[in-house]
């Protein structure tokens, strides 16, 4: 702490930091990237282990045996679904009642802000059916949820049938300590959202729903089941939920433990685990798996029905059956046993799942990277912004002492016009952000009237148009500044101040984002940090403008789309990628409106305006 009191040593340190600023920044950036890529390297990661005692050593014996019956039930369900042309509510109610459950229904309706072209829906009307298996001698204080979406077409019949078969089997067991809710929801996430809002009597997304009649206390955990074939080759575990929230790692451990026990192939991000971590392929495989998780988490949407439960502090995961061309098949009985085992273990829980990690990345199901290991990667990137800010701060302080001789009157009051001029670009860029957030949805009718496009296209194109129009703004602010102040020195002072503000702003933004959703924060930091750290007005304008645009948030999304497609081994051409990019934007806006995902408002209201401030700096003079 001698630093604070000793001016000469302080001077030496700041001198060192300003002199070596650029090399240090470059080293930090590279170190951040290398650290992040190193996370997927197996010797650097930890092996997963079950932290929760109640689910640990006591292995349960699985006795579920009616897989065949479930499959015939799936055919029956399919027939009734076709006949009803949607969810066969009455049949389901009867089926659940005959299995000894207390059955309730909930109807809901939701008008989307604009038509969803991916799922072809606009006015959504549906019914959720759920049956509660009351645990004997339990006072209705705790519950578990098993949900299976009733999807249109041929998909997911087996999941609903397995759910019913499990309900029948569970009803005959006496060991339940928690009520079990079997939920069949219509219109996938919208139905789940309606049910959850009904259960917790909240209304956060403007959904219309009928109140629930039956409840079972506080829900401890939920499993969502997706199964579309009679036999499967592997089970995929989906963890990424709304806003990048993840369930407790113990849930993943539980799934992994039962897959190991029953000899079921299990994957995460659709990728099997490899044992050869010391080869290049092995490492690449783990890195790809982790990158997929990062991309999925960063986009902040719910990747399965489970994702919406997380907001309510209910640990949830989706289990998805995959049927590929592999030889080794698993039948419905085994999947039933796996679920039985998982539910029984969850039933044993004495407390909510809380022992294990909530913040983690998974390079494979048996290895995890905890928050303590991945945060330094982000920290190394974020420290660049702080170093640059420190550098600017020092520069801002130093000339203010020296040139007082030739800047007689102005140097005494640089702060009063300074604050104003910094405020102007800040306010203007944020107003652009607000426009980007509000206008696309609100102007869709007008856009549809004047242009030959559909509503969805109108929304997306308006968003892109506003985004692009925002780039034209610097000239406007420049005129303001010209009128106010003419002197070269003051101008330089201003841009330094603006850049300092913008750097600190970005650092705070990214820091907060990374705390909540590491992946999003990291991806934004990787693209935004280099250009924002190096930008000044004294650069070749055209070249740097191009670089800035290429590293802007929108292009980051575009790159993510391409990388994602590459990683799931479904590479796309440029035009397909563009279409995907458009649909990703519309999905992002829809997710925000339907489920309250925060990525779109974050990008529109904060990240994009912040980026515009740097764009402003480039065109300062």
């Amino acid at each position, binding site marked *: *702490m001698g630093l*604070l*009191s000793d001016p000469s040593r302080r001077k030496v340190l700041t001198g060192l930091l300003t002199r070596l600023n650029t090399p240090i920044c470059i080293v930090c950036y590279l170190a951040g990237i290398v650290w992040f890529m190193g996370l997927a390297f197996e010797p650097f990661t930890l092996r997963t282990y079950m932290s929760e005692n109640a689910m640990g050593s006591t292995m349960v014996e699985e006795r579920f045996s009616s897989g065949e019956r479930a499959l015939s039930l799936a055919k029956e369900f399919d027939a009734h679904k076709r006949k009803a042309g949607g969810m066969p509510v009455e049949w389901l109610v009867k089926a659940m009642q005959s299995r*000894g459950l*207390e059955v309730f229904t909930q109807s809901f309706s939701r008008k989307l802000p604009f038509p969803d072209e991916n799922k072809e829906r606009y006015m959504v009307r549906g019914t959720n059916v759920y049956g509660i298996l*009351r645990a*004997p*001698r*339990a*006072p*209705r*204080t*705790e519950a578990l949820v098993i949900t299976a979406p009733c999807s249109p077409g041929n998909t997911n019949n087996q999941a609903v049938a397995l759910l019913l078969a499990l309900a029948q089997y569970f*009803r*005959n*067991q*006496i060991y339940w300590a928690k009520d079990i809710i079997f939920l069949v929801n219509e219109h996938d996430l919208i139905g789940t959202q309606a049910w959850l809002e009904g259960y*917790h*009597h*909240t209304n956060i997304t403007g959904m219309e729903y009928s109140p629930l009649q039956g*409840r079972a*206390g*506080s829900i401890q955990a939920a499993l969502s089941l997706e199964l579309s074939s009679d036999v499967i080759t592997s089970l995929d575990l989906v963890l990424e939920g709304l806003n990048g929230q993840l369930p407790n790692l113990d849930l993943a451990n539980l799934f992994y433990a039962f897959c190991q026990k029953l000899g079921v192939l299990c994957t995460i991000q659709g990728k099997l685990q490899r044992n050869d971590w010391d080869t290049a392929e092995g490492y690449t495989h783990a890195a790809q798996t982790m990158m997929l998780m990062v991309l999925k988490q960063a986009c902040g949407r719910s990747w399965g029905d489970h994702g919406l439960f997380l*907001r*309510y*502090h209910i640990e949830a995961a989706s289990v998805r059956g995959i049927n590929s061309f592999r030889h080794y098949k698993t039948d419905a009985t085994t999947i039933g046993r796996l679920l039985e085992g998982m539910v029984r273990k969850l039933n044993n829980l*004495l*407390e*909510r799942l*809380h022992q294990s990690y909530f913040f983690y990345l998974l390079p494979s199901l048996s290895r995890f990277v905890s928050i303590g290991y991945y945060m330094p990667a982000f920290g190394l990137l974020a420290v660049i912004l702080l170093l640059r800010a420190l550098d600017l701060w020092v520069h801002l302080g130093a000339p203010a002492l020296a040139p007082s001789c030739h800047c007689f009157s102005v140097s005494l009051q640089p702060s009063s016009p300074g604050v104003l001029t910094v405020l102007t670009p800040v306010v203007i860029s944020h107003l652009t952000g607000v426009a980007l957030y509000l206008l696309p949805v609100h102007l869709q009718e007008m856009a549809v009237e004047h242009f030959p496009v559909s509503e969805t296209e109108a929304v997306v194109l308006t968003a892109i148009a506003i985004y692009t129009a925002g780039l034209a703004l610097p000239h406007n602010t420049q005129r303001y500044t010209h009128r106010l102040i003419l002197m070269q020195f003051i101008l330089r002072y201003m841009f330094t101040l603006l850049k300092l503000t913008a750097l600190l702003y970005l650092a705070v933004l990214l820091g907060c984002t990374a705390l909540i959703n590491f992946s999003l924060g990291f991806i934004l930091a990787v693209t935004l940090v280099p250009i924002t750290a190096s930008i000044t007005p004294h650069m070749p304008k055209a070249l740097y403008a191009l670089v800035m645009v290429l590293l802007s948030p929108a292009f980051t999304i575009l790159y993510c789309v391409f990388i994602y497609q590459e990683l799931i081994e479904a590479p796309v051409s440029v035009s397909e990628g563009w279409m995907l990019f458009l649909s990703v934007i519309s999905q992002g806006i829809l997710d925000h409106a339907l489920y309250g995902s925060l990525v779109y408002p974050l990008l529109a209201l904060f990240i994009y305006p912040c980026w515009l401030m740097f764009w402003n700096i480039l065109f300062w003079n």
Partner: protein
Amino acid sequence: CEIKQLSDCLIRLLLDRRDGTRTSEALTPAAAARDEFQEELVIRPLHSGDIYASFQFRTLWDTDFLQEGQKVSHYRLFPKSLGQVLSKFSVRELHISFTQGFWRTMQWGQPFIPSPPGAELWVWFHDTVSDVDGNWKELTNVLSGIFCASLNFIDLTNTVQPSASFKPLGLGNATDHRFLRYATLPREIVCTENLTPWKKLLPCGSKAGLAVLLKSEKLFHSSFHSQAVHIRPVCQDEQCTSKAWELRQTLNVVFDLYTAGQGKKEWSLFKMFSRTLTEACPLATSSKVYVDITDNPELFELSPATPLLSQAVVLGDRRTYSVFDLTRAETFGQLRSLNLLLRWKGDGEMLRPLLHAERYVAGFGLQTGEIHTVIYNNHPYRAFPVLLMDSVPWYLQLYIHTLTVTSKSRDNKPSYIHYQPAKDRHRPHLLEMLIQLPPHSMTEVTVQFERALLKWTEYTPDPNHGFYVGSSVVSALVPSMVAMNTNFTQDQPLFSSFVPVKEESSYFVRVYTEPLLVNLPTPDFSMPYNVICLTCTVVAVGYGSFYNLLTRTFQVDEPSLPLAKRLANLIRRIRGVPLLT
């Protein structure tokens, strides 16, 4: 003013049933011995296909030991452990129940004697008691020992004094609720260790009579289990010339046909209890088994059939019972054992009980929440008032200004509200309201709360499990479907005579809602070590250096001159010329 009068009137209507007690006491046979013991089992097939068995054991003790100067040392049928407790703590009335499970009103209808999940204890003390709280504390500890239960966890933070919901069921006109204490332990788990001491209170123990059926391995293999002890003063005879103490031990259990029946829809005493009946308790004056056959023959078939039938109006409904009198030898037949057999025929449907209540916590996050209590009046055309009592622990800080009562989406103003706010760490919230339920309606009572942050030693060992809020209690006089028979005769079964009835047109019902499990903001308890290390470091480094900076005086340091100059200055000073700098 009018509203106040109305509410007073309604409360009186609801609660003032002292005369009724007197009437119900008619069933005591005047000619029999002064102390007596009766036992009874009611079996009632429920619409859901489950089966409800309710035991009642009633011991009458002809003494009045609360009188001054009277020392009681002779106990015949009455358990001495309880008698001593009654006299030592000047208890006027004591009701204690242990329940594992939740009574499913929607499927099972109303129970004969309702009880909330966990343990419930309410006691009226004699009005000569000066230190009620002290007596209460000692009493709970003693009862905790007698029943092997955690009743010692009852303290002032979970005890309330309801002003209207719990009135004495026995003789006496105590209405001053200062002598009433009510507490629930919703977390209490009931198991074998509570059953054994309960059985020991019976005159015959579990050696003879109906109590042989009480085998814990079967009783706890059920959907619902509740055991209770009720002690109150009653009249010894019709004219009520002398008082007696009544001890009623009840045990209610619901067996699940679905899980234990293995698909077969038939039931017998042996299947239920793994025993059959061979004799009555020799000490019992009456020992009977009732089987509710009102729905016979549509729903099930009973064998052996008995010619003895009895009709009783229970909970506003006229029911017919087959009666098996265990004191008569022919009941047991040739095999010298009685094994009742029930064979189901049809399928039941959901019931629509006239009064039904449920409760849940709305909202998400760990800061605030909202308690919703929903009360259903399913009567097609009659409105009736109910008393809602809510006792909420202090760590849920209720915002009483957010209290709303709505029926049929219109504001329903309660005619009587008694609210006692909580004191942190000292006493819970108590909210009592008299609400008029419109016919065929759903009334929703909501109140918002904030979750308190506890001190770190106040958390339970399993804080992430959540914290329990006891059931709310809905007491009501529900309009009866059939005319009540207030003119009790001798063969009135025990189960129909617990709550005294005054009016013919309505019957008293108490409904308990489910308890709530609420999560409070919980720190990560593995963190304190890290936190201590971190704070110590920050304090040591940060505070030390800042203190140093703040207290130090700063001076500009004169750069010291080189050695040659200093030597020159020494010479100059001697010479008296100006010094070099």
